């Protein structure tokens, strides 16, 4: 057996997702609203279920309702629906109290576009 170490430094380009990615880095929920049917998706869906490719970027409040939550050795994650969005999202939970039913999008501690949800107003969620 031969140990072999490979270190890779990627330069990634988000393309059409740029507004979404930049929003996440700033802790803002930037969603996509279909120009034809008005459906709002977050994370953004490029081509709407109605078939339309036209849409505009809209800012949501960042508040989200928790629909399902999983905790364990892999971390704390949830399926949530951001207020104003017609779709759901999977997020990492940050310091979210057990039993919390809602949270607020949080800027990532890392220089990565991470979908993270923290307590509302930085305090306890109910």
């Amino acid at each position, binding site marked *: 057996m031969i140990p072999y170490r490979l270190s890779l430094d990627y330069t990634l380009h988000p393309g059409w997702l740029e507004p979404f990615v930049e929003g996440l880095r700033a802790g803002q929920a930037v969603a996509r609203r279909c120009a034809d049917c008005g459906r709002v998706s977050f994370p953004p869906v490029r081509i709407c279920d109605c078939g339309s490719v036209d849409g505009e970027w809209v800012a949501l409040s960042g508040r989200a309702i928790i629909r*399902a939550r999983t905790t364990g050795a892999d971390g704390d994650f949830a*399926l949530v629906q951001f207020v104003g969005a017609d779709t759901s999202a999977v997020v990492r939970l940050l310091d979210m109290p057990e039993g919390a039913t809602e949270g607020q999008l949080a800027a990532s501690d890392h220089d990565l576009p991470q979908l993270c949800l923290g307590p509302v107003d930085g305090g306890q969620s109910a």
Partner: protein
Amino acid sequence: MRDSQVIVTGAAQTPFNRRKDGTGFRDWALDAFEAARLMACLDRADIDALFVASESDVFSLQLNPASILATELGLTGAAGMRCEAGGASGQVAVHAGVQAVASGSARQVAVVGVDPSASSLSGDKMRTLYGFSFDAWTDGMTGLTATALYALSWQVFAAEQGLGEAALAAVTKQNRGNAMANPDAHLPREHSVDEIAESPMIADPYRRLHCSPLSDGAAALILTHADHAPAARRKAPRVVGIGGATDHAQLGARSRPGDFTAKQKAMARACVLAGIAPKDIGLTEIYDSYAGAQLQGLMALGLTGDVAADLHAGAFAPDGRCPVNLSGGLMGQGAPVGAVGVGQVATCARLLEGRYHPGLQLQSPPRYALADTHGGLCTTAAVTILENGGAA
């Protein structure tokens, strides 16, 4: 494909496990291919095309694996291509092979699935990489793991179906128990309910024992047009239906996040080709990356209308009306990713033909068997239906 001319003349696999013997993926691929080729009674020169299933170059550190394996398997000159669809890589390679034979562009093909999923990289590195097998921008960057994503989907499904810990334990015990009679299995175990309940929590409600392992290994098929099959193999099982479908890559974009909708569509397409209904399936190898995924799959495939009741009644047990994962599935037999779908079809073919491991072989093989695989969180689904050719 009701009058299918695509015969599974060869079907084989290596043991699935964590290799510590110094062998590599080229060795496993050759072992599986040679066993399948000999079963098919064919020479290497008879193979027109090679379809290789391998999920990621990052696992093997070998780009363009089809060209390497064509050389390693003594198939230089044959057409070669690599097929990839995440966890469904093996099954889509089977589909590519079936289409080549059915279309007449090849007389006989080899389908080889292989991955060093256990021994090349650490578990932590693999876990990180698998986060990028979902949407890299929305999931991978967030550090989401496969187990967490599957757990969230299962929670939605379980709430709708009235399922809980007992159902997860029943699947875990059955699959690992079936693996006890499979000498090629990675995790043959007789788990107690307490042992399962006390294993470490990975992503609630999934505990370590509810998860399939990462394995090393290979599987191979030889698919032959009936006009070119050796006389001894003309009654081997035939592929009568294939079907594939995709779903939204993001779980949250799905209107019903607990449902495996792509699997439902893939099964419908395969059944139309085969001219049968799901109730006609007499055994199945299902993609059980997690215990709950097996139950979500059974519902999506139409193999039950009440999964809780049928599970409790033993419908999916080895002596049930539709035995599920006699091999042990991914949970018991193991999961070298590219080999999984190929191995599932090989298992179904051997069971239909009466050539499976003696402790698991059905005494009266059914007419139809189903192999079911998916990639991502059932983002890419692929199923294959085989019909008994009368050899058993």
